[in-house]
């Protein structure tokens, strides 16, 4: 098990290799990426920022919960912070397990819990130059033109 907040591009293949094990029959990879449109607006990039010490603690807690619940320690999660361009990966979740069903169940559990609990925020940049803070439940408020908060 390993979790990390990183400021460099994520490498899904490396994380997949990290969880592979000869006792595993299935590996899954989840990659979250910056999508061209959100809530009808055209996105050009996203800044991700975190309350880092708490985010690290919460990520590790969620992974430990998944390990206990689904019966595998072959789990790696990396979340990227900083400014991401269109198509870039913000999160990679890699799991391997002896059996396929819990490998897929763990994947879903991890991304859903992370989306609800880990203190990470995004500020979307739009094609018209505006920026907004958005949340995972559809909320949005305009962001200040020059950001006071850094990652």
């Amino acid at each position, binding site marked *: 098990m390993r979790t990390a907040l990183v400021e460099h591009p994520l490498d899904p293949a490396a994380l997949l290799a990290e969880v592979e094990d000869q006792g595993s029959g299935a590996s899954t990879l989840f990659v979250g990426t910056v999508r061209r449109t959100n809530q009808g607006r055209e996105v050009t990039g996203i800044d991700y920022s975190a309350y880092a010490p*708490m985010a690290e603690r919460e990520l590790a807690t969620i992974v430990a919960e998944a390990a206990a619940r689904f019966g595998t320690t072959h789990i790696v999660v990396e979340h990227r912070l900083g400014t991401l361009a269109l198509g870039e990966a913000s*999160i990679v979740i890699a799991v391997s397990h002896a059996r396929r069903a819990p490998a897929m169940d763990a994947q879903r559990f991890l991304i859903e819990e992370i989306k609800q609990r880990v203190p990470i925020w*995004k500020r979307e940049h739009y094609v018209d130059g505006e920026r907004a803070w958005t*949340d*995972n439940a559809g909320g949005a*408020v305009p962001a200040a033109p020059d950001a006071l908060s850094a990652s």
Partner: protein
Amino acid sequence: MRLNVLLFASWSDALGPQVVVDLPEGARVADLVTELAGRASGKVLPRPLVAVNHRYARSDAVIAAGDEVALIPPVAGG
């Protein structure tokens, strides 16, 4: 009791990354949120949670001087 409270995202835009709040001894998480929501009116994502020492705290939890307190607006990771 004088607390340094960490702020993030829209709350940081509105009030800065850190604010000082004076609260009576025995104040609870809900009191802190009420105080800060008054200052930030409207420009923030509503219904923030509060973390005390890196853990989510219930709204009736009592805050102690020296705690690391942070306002956690709706999260957007993943």
